[in-house]
């Protein structure tokens, strides 16, 4: 630590960080634009100027940029003395800025506004012409208004340098600089939405939000967790007038840091969908006419089913809802609502995480890894946030090179320049090219089974007590040797795999590698992606029971309660048809209408994540609590409340905690139902929330009582004390003088560090006592006629609920089959042809050079083909009388096959 003096105050600071970051960590205000806690310093905006004095006698000092300065032990600095320079700098930055705050989406949460005020530039002297630019169409997610730009370069540093985008960049120079694409068109990066948060002003804005815009202070917000995949990024949804308006990142240094993916940010439109189930309905027979019934009647009918009905849970419903269903129908009658293949895989993940000496990798672990092996998982499409972290991990070699030269690690541009294209080794073994190929040392195309064999061979080469595999090809042997050498040399190796390829051996192989690298206390990082927000939570509730969905479908039960689940996405249509047809009574609790719901006798409208509170367990086995953002419109109710006759969510959570082995830790998730700040609950609304008395005036001039949250902790009101620096119940960051999301540092223990008093969630799996044991290296290779099927996932389209959000719909495509061009030739297929997939109808063909001949990629969850109806091998033939379906947009499929990008194969 170094002791420094800033304007007479003495601080202890970390000399390994830059001075700006350390000054902010001391909660002292100092303006900045180009520096970002996740992206380091480049020193371009000249806003964080301060005076550094050479010694005690020095009265004049010299001006330095705090973000480019190493804090010197005993040094004296002045922020005040450089105020004039900063005011001058911002005045020139602001010359071309249009001052259109009243019509700008950023207004009221604008870092540029805050910094302008803070720097004292309150009067505009420039009266010349301003530059004007043309704006570009950047796709359905991001709006573009170049005239507001202050050329801080944060967009390029984020989009290109941090997120690896190549379809965006700076153009021209000095006062003519432009940030955009070579030709207008949708941004390709899956992380483009973060531009809206990274841009200090309103150049890049959330287009979905713009369509139903509200000022930040008029949004009702709550701490929430993204429901769109198994990563569990922390989010902050905002509501106004009963509709969900937007989602922004909520900082959690162990799960998502400062960034989320575009599916999470733009995929919540389904909450406002006209396809929402909004009333209770009942009918006597499956094909009878549904009639609307009262909530009490519906609840009584549901309760009457207890004892005779089986329950089918859901990986997209909360821990509380699944638990409530399990309690209602009894554990023996409670079945996991995942496909049978997934059931086994998820149990395996739990087994590995609980009984193997591995470190379950969180996002920091991933970012700090210096040798990575990805076995099979297409992380960008199944657990996107992890892919963004993996992109950072390959930079560790550059950082090590820099450290040897005594460069500080925050010198972003210098380190990139030093490293050039030298990266920490990242190996990808996958059945097709992926979006991380550009940062990989080697991409090896192999089937899931072969990827598993390679994995087992790596483990065996690392530790010869691990089971061996025979019959590796020469290429495979070379690859294994190369990977083993890099893993051995690594300081912090990481193995990434997951359930998506539905190959159990792949998980075992990943576990064996990680086990082989475990060395006493030092454990290898392992990250296993799981499909949905609460996949692991659901499986924990199964507690080893063998109640698969297949067992439920074959049970011959006459009554069933299905919780937030479309069974047609989980099992072959024929099996589901016959199960539903055999039921006397089917109760469905769900948010959106779907095929399963069409057969229901009793439908109960369930709240989405935005209208319910609850707990999700993510891919690490980390339980995280999410608070409802706004009250559900009656009779909509959270599933957990339907199933428990309105118990408080915290009470159900306490019951879960008591019922799960090692679950007591769940009680730490919330500050408790009687939590308060100064005698009041935490407000969901900003203290500047406006229009409360006027917003219902078109209905009645009488202001009704504020909606009550039946759960404790937060209320649907601006009443109460906003937790200004305490992140116990952390929704939207705000601090005096800091209206934008940059105010976050006021809540952090230090910049980039954990939030004060906040919950990281709790890790439910404990493997501290695990010993080195091995999984058998058995790999069953599928054999049979026809093409061998592997699943392909799409960030935009594969997930059930988000795909029904309008913005995601624009990026998604209809189903297709992906084939190697040589196979297409054999079948007589041209790129514009259709393919008949066994008995499953015809879909377009997509030619991909990276796919192995003899294999076929079938997308999961896209309209037009149900992956659950596929067999391990399928026959394909050219479709007759083919017409491309509406919604087929090959251009929307962003893959990394370079030849495809160039249009050769497509």
């Amino acid at each position: 630590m170094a002791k420094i003096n800033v304007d007479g105050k003495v601080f202890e600071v970390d000399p390994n960080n830059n001075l700006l970051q350390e000054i902010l960590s001391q909660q002292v205000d100092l303006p900045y634009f180009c520096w970002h806690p996740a992206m380091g310093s480049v020193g371009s905006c000249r806003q964080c100027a301060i005076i550094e004095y050479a010694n005690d006698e020095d009265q004049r000092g010299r001006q330095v940029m705090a973000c480019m300065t190493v804090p010197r032990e005993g040094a004296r600095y002045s922020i005040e003395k450089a105020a004039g320079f900063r005011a001058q700098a911002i005045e020139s930055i602001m010359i071309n800025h249009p001052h259109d705050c009243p019509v700008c989406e950023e207004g009221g949460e604008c870092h540029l506004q805050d910094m302008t005020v803070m720097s004292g530039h309150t009067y505009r002297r420039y009266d010349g012409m301003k530059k004007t630019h043309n704006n570009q169409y950047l796709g359905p997610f991001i709006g573009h208004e170049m005239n507001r730009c202050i050329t801080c370069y944060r967009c390029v540093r984020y989009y290109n340098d941090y997120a690896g985008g190549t379809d965006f960049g700076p153009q021209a120079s000095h006062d003519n600089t432009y940030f955009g694409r070579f030709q207008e068109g949708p941004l390709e990066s899956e992380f483009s939405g973060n531009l809206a948060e990274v841009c200090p002003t309103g150049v890049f804005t959330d287009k979905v939000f713009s369509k139903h815009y509200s000022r930040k202070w008029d949004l009702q917000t709550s701490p929430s967790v993204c429901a769109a995949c198994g990563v569990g990024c922390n989010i902050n949804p905002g509501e106004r007038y009963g509709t969900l308006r937007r989602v922004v990142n909520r900082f959690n240094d162990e799960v998502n840091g400062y960034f989320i993916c575009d599916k999470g940010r733009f995929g919540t439109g389904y909450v406002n969908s006209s396809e929402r189930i909004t009333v209770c309905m009942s009918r006597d027979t499956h094909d009878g006419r549904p009639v609307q019934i009262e909530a009490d009647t519906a609840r009584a009918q549901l309760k009457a089913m207890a004892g005779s009905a089986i329950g089918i849970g859901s990986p997209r419903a909360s821990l509380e809802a699944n638990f409530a269903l399990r309690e209602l129908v009894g554990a023996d009658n409670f079945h996991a609502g995942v496909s049978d293949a997934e059931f086994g895989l998820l149990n395996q993940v739990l087994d590995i995480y609980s009984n193997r000496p591995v470190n379950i990798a969180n996002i920091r672990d991933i970012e700090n890894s210096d040798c990575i092996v990805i076995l099979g998982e297409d992380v960008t499409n199944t657990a996107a946030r992890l892919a963004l972290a993996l992109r950072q991990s390959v930079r560790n070699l550059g950082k090590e090179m820099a450290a040897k030269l005594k460069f500080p690690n925050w010198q972003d541009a210098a380190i990139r320049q030093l490293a050039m294209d030298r990266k920490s080794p990242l190996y990808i073994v996958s059945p097709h090219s992926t979006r991380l190929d550009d940062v990989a040392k080697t991409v090896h195309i192999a089937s899931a089974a072969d990827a598993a064999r390679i994995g087992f061979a790596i483990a065996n080469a690392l530790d010869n007590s691990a089971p061996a595999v025979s019959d590796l090809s020469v290429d495979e042997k070379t690859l294994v040797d190369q990977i083993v050498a890099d893993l051995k040399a690594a300081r912090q190796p990481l193995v990434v795999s997951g359930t998506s390829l539905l190959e159990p051996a792949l998980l075992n192989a990943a576990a064996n590698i990680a086990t082989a690298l475990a060395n006493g206390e030092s454990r290898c990082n392992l990250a296993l992606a799981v499909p949905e927000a609460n996949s692991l939570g659901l499986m924990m509730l199964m507690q080893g029971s063998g109640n698969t969905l297949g067992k439920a479908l074959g049970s011959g039960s006459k009554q069933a309660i299905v919780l937030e689940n479309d069974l047609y996405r989980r099992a072959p249509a024929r099996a589901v048809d016959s199960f539903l047809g055999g039921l006397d009574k089917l109760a469905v609790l769900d948010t959106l209408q779907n095929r399963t719901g069409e057969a229901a006798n009793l439908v109960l409208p369930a709240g989405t994540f935005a209208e319910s509170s609850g707990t999700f367990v993510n891919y690490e086995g980390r339980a995280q609590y999410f608070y409802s953002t706004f009250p559900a419109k009656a009779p909509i109710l959270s599933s957990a409340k339907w199933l428990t006759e309105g118990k408080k969510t915290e009470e159900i959570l306490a019951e879960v905690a008591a019922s799960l082995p090692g679950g007591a830790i769940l009680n730490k998730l919330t500050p408790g139902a009687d939590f308060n700040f100064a005698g009041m609950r935490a407000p969901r609304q900003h203290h500047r929330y406006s229009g409360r008395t006027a917003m219902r005036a078109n209905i009645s001039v009488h202001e009704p009582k504020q909606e009550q949250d039946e759960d404790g902790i937060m209320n649907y009101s601006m009443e109460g004390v906003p937790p200004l620096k305490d992140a116990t119940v952390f929704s939207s960051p705000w601090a005096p003088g800091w209206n934008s999301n940059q105010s976050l540092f006021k809540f952090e223990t230090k910049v980039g560090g954990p939030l004060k008093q906040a919950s990281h969630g709790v890790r439910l799996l404990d493997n501290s006592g695990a010993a080195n044991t091995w999984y058998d290296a058995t790999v069953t290779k599928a054999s049979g006629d026809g093409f061998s099927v592997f699943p392909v996932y799409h960030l935009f389209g594969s997930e059930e609920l988000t795909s029904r959000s309008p913005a995601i719909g624009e990026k998604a495509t209809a189903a297709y089959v992906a084939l190697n061009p040589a196979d297409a030739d054999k079948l007589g297929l041209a790129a514009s042809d259709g393919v008949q997939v066994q008995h499953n109808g015809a879909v377009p063909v997509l030619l991909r050079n990276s796919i192995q001949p003899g294999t076929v990629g079938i997308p999961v969850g896209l309209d037009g083909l149900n992956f659950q109806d596929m067999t391990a091998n399928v026959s394909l033939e050219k479709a007759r009388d083919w017409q491309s379906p509406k919604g087929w947009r090959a251009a929307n499929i962003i893959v990394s096959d370079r030849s495809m990008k160039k249009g050769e194969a497509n």
Partner: protein
Amino acid sequence: MSNIIASTAPKARALTPEEIHEIEHEKTHYPYAQAVGLEALKIVQKYQGWVSDESLLAVAEYLDLAPDELEGVATFFNMIFRRPVGRHVIQFCDSVACWMLGCDSLKGHITSTLGIEYGETTADNMFTLIPVPCLGDCDKAPVLQVGDVVYRNLTPEKIDQIIADLRAQA
């Protein structure tokens, strides 16, 4: 919307064998494709007179660079022309020394003689006029440059002569 863009988007043209030959030669000088980008643009401009979208895409494809990255380079340098220019590009210095010695009135002379402002090209495609911030010849100001030739100690008469000579070259 995206469909419209796809159908009107420019496509890479084929590079000529001469262009490829010279680019290949430049590639031997640098370890990274990015570094060759600027030289390749200069080569294309030498043969084509300017860098069209089609040429830029061709170079990007040939060097396996993102077009967006190459566009950043192309638009950064004002000697890379991203719009068609006339046969002769008059680079007229408007920096301090030339300004002190009366370049403003000389610029007015060119404008009235040729009928073009900065950034414009004569109707016969003979001349394009652009400003440059210093040609490093201040002791002989005012100066301008056309192609590889720098013209010094300019007067209205000298300019008339230069224009006449350049026209005669055609």
